[in-house]
């Protein structure tokens, strides 16, 4: 091994001149420099101590709401004193190492990562003895049944995870149903066609999100509310009726150019919000999928595949917008059983 390397070295065009001679630092030869470095470093450590005391003073004295140059005064002072102190300590220690600690380079020899051949042989022997004494090789019946039980050990491990969540059978669509009012998502007020001008877009939700039961408690709240919201949120837009090209069967899903679409992007489910009135395009801020609302929510750009589901609208007796039914299409991002669920929805209608 070393012979090989030596031969290689022989073939080197330039011989290794060896480590260059050690060069002394100014602090090694000039006592004045040495003293200066010592003072500098001590100075840094001392200032660090002062800053840390300053940290405590600031912690006690500064009011939480005070500001300084637009920053929170507390945050700034605590950070500046702590950061300054730490930096000074760090730089001080490094300076000490660089300027004053011994700077003779040392040479250490490397050894191959591998153990010696004897060590390896001895280990193999031990391993062999161990395996032999166990009879691991000689008793295939025991061995195999052990492997079998070992692999069965995976079963409880996996089955125990079963209760991490319910099974995803039958993704329910949304809380929208026939006759449910479409309400404004800020105050929960119902919407009349006259509230909307041409070109306007309103974020809306099903009325149930704002309903209270007889005890005055919200019908939906907490997690349930968020889960339903993440599927049922909609946008209501008004366009010129002649600009809209409804596909077959959708001709009467709108009221005077007012259409309602799911707000949840069919890509990975971001709420969509950027509306361009002129082009009737709705752009998702997450990955820029763009849907044409005048053309049945068709995807015109971006990574989303399915069109934005549309909610058929009608008016109730008081003249407010209501849903005719739940979405006839699956809302939100795709999932493996989507095709089946969609078929079920199609069969229903």
């Amino acid at each position: 091994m070393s012979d090989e390397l030596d031969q290689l070295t022989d073939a080197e065009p330039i011989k290794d001149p060896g480590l260059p001679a050690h060069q002394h630092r100014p602090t090694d030869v000039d006592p004045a420099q040495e003293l200066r470095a010592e003072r500098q470093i001590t100075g840094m450590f001392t200032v660090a101590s002062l800053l840390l005391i300053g940290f405590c003073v600031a912690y006690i004295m500064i009011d939480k709401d005070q500001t300084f140059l637009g920053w929170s005064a507390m945050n700034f002072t605590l950070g500046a004193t702590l950061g300054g102190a730490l930096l000074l300590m760090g730089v001080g220690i490094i300076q000490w190492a660089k300027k004053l600690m011994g700077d003779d380079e040392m040479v250490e020899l490397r050894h191959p990562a591998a153990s010696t051949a004897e060590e390896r042989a001895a280990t193999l022997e031990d391993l062999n003895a161990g395996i032999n004494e166990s009879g691991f090789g000689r008793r295939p019946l025991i061995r195999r049944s052990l492997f079998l039980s070992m692999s069965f050990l995976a079963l409880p491990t996996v089955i125990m995870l079963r209760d991490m969540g319910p099974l995803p059978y039958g993704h329910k669509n949304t809380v929208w149903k026939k006759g449910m009012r479409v309400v404004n998502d800020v105050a929960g007020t119902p919407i009349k066609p006259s509230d909307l001008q041409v070109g306007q877009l309103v974020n809306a939700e099903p009325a149930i999100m704002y309903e209270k039961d007889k005890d005055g408690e919200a019908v939906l709240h907490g997690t349930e509310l968020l889960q339903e919201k993440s599927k049922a949120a909609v946008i209501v837009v008004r366009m010129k009726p002649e600009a809209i090209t409804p596909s077959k069967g959708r001709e009467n899903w709108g009221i005077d150019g007012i259409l309602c679409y799911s707000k949840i992007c069919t890509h990975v489910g971001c709420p969509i919000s950027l509306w361009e009135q002129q082009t009737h395009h709705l752009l998702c801020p997450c990955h820029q999928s763009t849907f044409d609302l005048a053309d049945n929510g068709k995807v015109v750009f971006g990574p989303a595949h399915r069109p934005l589901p549309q909610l058929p609208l009608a008016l109730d007796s008081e003249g407010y917008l209501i849903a005719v039914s739940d979405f006839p299409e699956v809302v939100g991002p795709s999932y493996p059983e989507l095709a089946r669920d969609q078929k079920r929805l199609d069969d229903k209608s």
Partner: protein
Amino acid sequence: MSTVDERTNIEDTEFGKKAAGPVGWLDDRLGLAGASKRSHLLRKVFPEHWSFMLGEIALWSFVVLLLTGTFLTFWFQPSMAETTYNGSYTPLNGLEMSHAYASTLDISFDVRGGLLIRQIHHWAAALFVAAMIVHMLRVMFTGAYRKPREINWLIGISLMVLGLVEGFAGYSLPDDLLSGTGLRFVDGLLRSIPIVGSYLEYFIFGGEFPGDVIIPRLYMVHILLIPALLLALIGAHMILLVYHKHTQWGGPGRTEKNVVGYPMLPVYAAKAGGFFFVVFGFTALMGAVLQINPIWAYGPYNPSEVTAGSQPDWYMGFVEGAVRIMPNWESTFFNYTWSWNVFFPAAVLPGLFLGVGAAWPFIEQWITGDKREHHLLERPRNAPFRTAFIVAAMTAYGVLWIGGGNDIIATKFHLSLNAITWFCRIGLFVLPVVTFMITKRICIGLQRADANRILHGYETGVIERSPDGGFTERHAPLPVGSQYSLTNHDRLPVLEAPPETDHNGVAAPHSRMAKLRAKAREIYYDGSVDKPTVEDVHHAEEHLRDHDGHPVELGDEFQGVSESGVPRVH
């Protein structure tokens, strides 16, 4: 080197009298002195180079993360249960939100120094991932992953993956609008996994998105599971580093068989230890003056709201970009929906990056057939294929990154989103090829320049006029140390075609594989310039000494030379 006279017994010195007691007490119980002596642990030599600091930055920012993270756990409540906010930040007063979000607001506004620690934690996280990636690039560019360090390379890759997941988990905890949007993305990604997607979604989120268990679960992952794995792997990373001894750059006196540098005690320990304070101090200053993740400005998570221009933390940018530029492919067969538009960019592509990265040392070893240990780092130019390959991968990463910011670029530079997306789609495949070729050419050019400097010396700037009126510039030889450094690397192997048949004239059993390998090797070494041979140098020396038949005289004041080519005059 040691201050103790060889003849005096260390136990009789002043130091010995003081230290022998405690050292003895410990050694009686742990027997560490033997191990320390055998491995020279206390005086272990570490070579110096600025690029060796990158891993240290990652290590120390991890320590900062542990310290600041512990502080944050005193107040943070990982619960998605609903509460009504009633704290110092008045704009959100009376709003319904989760305990997670409310307690993060409390940390930011009501716990003194809480905001600072939160910001240090976030900055340190960004630094941690950044340092790991740059450190990894350093290791790759210099071939430091070669035998015997392949296992440490794999540990490093695992550390990086864990670091990314850890960062993402932390980003999701405050339950603000941005973190919820991030989780919504994870939900979409889980759903896109073929066949089992819905099951994974329901099991991980405990039901339909968002559910009420994901934050407590991520909290456990973020403060226990992954940190424990990280700690264990970092420990293994360091033990292997000490066992293998650090790689070093070649040069006079620095060989494959030694390591030249400063001993752990005191110089290296002081420098590295001091550097911890520098990293902590630096992140603390950032926490003081640079706002990061102002969750109060985003509001609590609401699945029907999103902020425009929402961006993940920088290290997720390439995945984000891939997701954005992916064509909208989705198909239905076997009665299942297959969302390639999400699954491919968010799961397959990152897997591909990591897989190739992890396998690279073994692929390279298979191509070159090099089974030797390497402790001297290779200059990027001396491995043109590898260097170009890394640059190509970086280019692809960069294109994806641009894709991840396509909306911001579009608004800032008034470009069409469509155009940027198509640029990225095409660029992802074309630009890496272009940068590969350019990088390889540059490397080969630099190799030639090196050979030139060895053989013809450097330009002295001394212009001579010959009797017939021509001008020439004198060259002087490089100092031998520099010459040696330039040639201190492996010679190119002789490429030979693999035998078609074995000794008996039978078609060689692995000839297909061997042919493939020979081809790969040819491509790998293609264009590389070998270093000069002994004869080349011999020739050149004579030529240099004997310029135009006259010996080169540079005068007395011309002593020494500098590698930069500027004559040094004392």
